[in-house]
């Protein structure tokens, strides 16, 4: 347990050592939420969507957290594959390396979500803050899973970044309040988190079924991410 905690803290420090990276993690979601708060409602209207006002602003916070978390998840795997394998071989084992990595990723996802949520709260106000924060965090966790999975399959940073962006664009464009309605749009990874976030922005609660779906999506994504970290830390011969 101590080894996992120490390694997790080291992984976190490794990520935040570059001050510019830390600055980007804090500034970019805040900037995106601030700027998009005033235009997302109009954008949704142009697309024939129904989301408006505070709900649209809230959705922007979810998107900001998701996009950053996706990149974070991808680079956590793609840039650490060699080091993690050596660490596992040196005695820590692939499972503990994977748990330490996922702990660091979730902590960073929490940081991104907090920044996006705080900006939303200050810039636009949120009628249902706990629900909004939970939904924004779900966006981040789901995209940590997606980014990590992409990172375990694709090692090239340009191809990986574009793949994460490609998935995000399909997800965001087919989301509720934008063009998305029925059919395959219902199966998109952040569909239910977006429903909860939009409802929270409008000051409404969400049905229990939506919360269960959000929880399952976030937990499923984290499980996938853990498996991806484990696979990349595992020795090739084992």
């Amino acid at each position, binding site marked *: 347990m101590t080894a996992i905690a120490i390694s997790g803290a080291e992984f976190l420090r490794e990520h935040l050592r570059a001050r*510019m990276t830390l600055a980007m993690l804090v500034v970019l979601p805040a900037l995106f939420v601030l700027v998009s708060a005033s235009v997302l409602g109009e954008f949704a209207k*142009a697309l024939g969507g129904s989301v408006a006002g505070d709900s649209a602003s809230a959705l922007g916070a979810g998107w900001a957290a998701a996009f950053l978390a996706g990149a974070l998840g991808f680079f956590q795997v793609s840039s650490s594959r060699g080091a993690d394998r050596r660490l596992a071989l040196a005695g820590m084992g692939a499972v503990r390396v994977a748990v330490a990595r996922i702990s660091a990723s979730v902590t960073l996802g929490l940081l991104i979500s907090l920044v996006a949520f705080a900006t939303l709260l200050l810039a636009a106000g949120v009628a249902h803050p706990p629900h909004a924060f939970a939904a924004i965090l779900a966006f981040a966790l789901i995209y940590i899973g997606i980014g990590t999975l992409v990172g375990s399959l694709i090692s*090239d*940073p340009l191809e990986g970044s574009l793949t994460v962006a490609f998935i995000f664009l399909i997800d965001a*464009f087919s989301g509720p309040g934008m063009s998305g309605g029925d059919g395959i749009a219902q199966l998109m990874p952040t569909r239910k988190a977006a429903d909860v976030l939009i409802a929270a922005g409008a000051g409404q609660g969400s049905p229990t079924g939506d919360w269960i779906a959000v929880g399952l999506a976030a937990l499923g994504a984290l499980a996938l991410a853990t498996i991806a970290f484990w696979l990349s830390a595992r020795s090739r011969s084992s």
Partner: protein
Amino acid sequence: MTGRVLTATRMGFREQLRRPLLIVLLVAVPFLFISWSIAITEPTPRMIELPGGEPFLTTMKELHGAIMVPITLGFLAGLIGLFTIRSAIESDRRLVLAGFSPGEAIAPRLVVVLAATLIVLAVSLAVMAIDFTPASWPPFVLGNLLAGLTYAAIGALAGALVGRLGGAYLMFFLPMLDIGVAQNPMFFEGAPQGWASVLPGYGPTRVLVDGAFSQGFDALGPLLVALAWLLGLSVAVLVLLRRSLGGR
């Protein structure tokens, strides 16, 4: 161009072609992004102000079609510039140690970035042309090319200054915030105001908006601003790369 620069350029292209997924994504992302954006936008009327100052009545659908091209280009060219130049910084020092001058090492990378930007531009314009035809193609293409090259240079600078991860974070958001929001006539009346007019996307976007909706050309001022941005960024990229590769 010397023989060894040609060889390095050929190797640079071969490196890209070894990644078939990249080629697929450079076509699929613009195709999906632009065609979907146009398809889902309502043709509601929208009054905009052209760079010459005259009002022009268009629709959100047409506006979205036109503006998605530079957003896509800025996003993709920025990431291409970022990772190509990061790769140069990480590996081309060896070329310099082996006898290449920094300029000879840099040139092939820049040719690759330019070629990739042109491919994305061509795909994006082709996809857009299915649903929307600009009033005047030359300024529309020029504005988009300037947007792509400007963001390729910003990506290259980001790679050199804030690293791979910080650069990726930046290039995920900056083109969206600049071209997608601040310069986007879908979200404001008249011309971009205040902070929007000092962003790198201002000049290229005004030039392409002029080309999209006007037969004449009234965007000389924005064109000069765009060229100044591109020149300044290009000089900064060259200086940084020469320093990174050990040149003076």
